[in-house]
């Protein structure tokens, strides 16, 4: 793995990071995409998709008001890069233990990115104070400059953060991992088996209603039995989603409207 690839991942990862809150919020920064991007650059997209999918549902809470959550995009990206480095260096160790160890590092970095966002928002206040009087005098170019400086502050800081972690953190993490006893490695494997369930529980708590919980239980049971015998074709699943979406829109908007009329 070359340094050029690490630099490229850092620049692209920081670009995706902007989409999480600062520009657009288009969902291009969803963990499965950032994980896959890192995996694709490092030549193992499957691992990136695998890690990204697990992270996708766990750290789902958005930044509302002054609340700054950890960056799920950074968690998936860092975990993938770390995992692929470990895979290259350690062939005999269980892959699930490696992925869990790297996920822990990724989660720590994701929380650190959240903390850096708080610093960034404080820095924005300072930038605004410096230029506000000029804007109030009608020099609107300073409005553009505030936006530009805020963009650069966030982007450059994230690039540096990623680069520092990859260059300094990877060798250190590999050394630490090499010293771990068998029990901890098995414990990590066990944790990796449970962790995806956190994502399901988070979504369940977000969508929970009295009727919804019963419906969830029935669907889970029926489809568990169906899946024992056969895997549903992807086209049927997509058609099912489209049909239910139409029913949902009809039921919540048009049916109520026609009732009123």
């Amino acid at each position, binding site marked *: 793995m070359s340094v050029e690839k690490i630099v490229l991942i850092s620049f692209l990862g920081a670009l995706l990071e902007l989409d999480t809150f600062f520009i657009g919020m288009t969902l291009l920064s969803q963990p499965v995409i950032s994980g896959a991007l890192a995996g694709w650059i490092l030549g193992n997209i499957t691992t990136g998709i695998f890690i990204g999918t697990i992270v996708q549902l766990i750290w789902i809470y958005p930044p509302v008001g002054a609340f700054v959550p950890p960056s799920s995009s950074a968690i998936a990206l860092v975990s993938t890069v770390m995992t692929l480095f470990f895979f290259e260096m350690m062939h005999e160790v269980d892959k699930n233990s490696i992925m869990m160890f790297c996920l822990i590092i990724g989660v720590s970095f994701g929380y650190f990115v959240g903390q850096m966002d708080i610093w960034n928002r404080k820095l924005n206040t300072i930038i605004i104070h410096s230029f506000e009087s000029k804007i109030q005098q009608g020099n609107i170019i300073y409005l553009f400059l505030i936006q530009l400086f805020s963009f650069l502050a966030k982007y450059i800081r994230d690039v540096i953060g990623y680069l520092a972690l990859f260059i300094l953190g990877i060798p250190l993490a590999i050394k630490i991992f090499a010293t771990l006893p068998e029990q901890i490695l098995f414990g990590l494997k066990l944790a990796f088996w*449970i962790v995806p369930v956190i994502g399901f529980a988070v979504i369940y708590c977000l969508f929970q*209603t009295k009727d919804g919980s019963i419906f969830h239980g029935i669907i889970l049971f029926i489809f568990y039995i169906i899946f024992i015998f056969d895997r*549903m074709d992807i086209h049927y699943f997509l058609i099912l989603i489209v049909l239910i979406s139409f029913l949902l829109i009809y039921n*919540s908007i048009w049916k109520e409207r026609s009732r009123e009329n």
Partner: protein
Amino acid sequence: MKLLRLFELIWAGIKLNFLQLSWNFERLQNIGFLFSFIHILKRIYKKNGQDFLRAIKRHINFFNTHIFFSAAVLGVMMKLEEEISNENPETKEKNIEDTKIGIMGPLAAIGDSLFWSGIKPLALLIGAGLIYLYNYDTKIFLIASFVSILIYNIPRVLIKYYLLFKSYFQFTELFLLIQKIRFQDIMKSIKFFGMGILGIVMAGYFNFKETSVISSRLLDSILLLFFFIFIVRAIRSKVAVSTIFITIVVGSVIFSYIIIR
């Protein structure tokens, strides 16, 4: 009355993507909001005129609402800036400020609940679910990312531009429209639909997953279901996701020390 050109409205809508770029703890989205329609203020007032400076001072104050629903505030502000006479600046100031404060809060509440607790988790669940149900290859990943981006971005763009045009061209009807739309019913439908999808995804995950600790598929699923219930209870008791994550890691390591001696 100077009617704004269609292109200027669309351009303001595009610039709204940068609403949170210079988010700050003091006045939150103020710079992003002013930035998104400064070109319109410039057109409504003559540049460097006293009225233009007053308008800048008005809109550099506190601003905070949901990023996609901010289009409605923007449309209303453009209309008021254009229509209210400049003969009495203090009355104009008060009218605009009162309207802005009056609509920011309700729009933020609707937007947060609709997007952050409804559409976004649903889109991410369907994206991750497609990967869990099928496999981690590139084709499925591309379909899953495309579907989740589509589910999230179609309502995002439609709501944003609909509100922008509606609030500018039919400003008086906007409040009536907000009252009429049954957000509670829409949210109920999204949650019910989400619970169904979650049931299918969990059934698929339990059946098809590659990582398992116990050789019996049924026993493995029952154990994971037990962890799911335990985590749901923890989240409902307001335990943070990060705490649950750490507890699982630490608990797994302790458990492995007990069974491996």
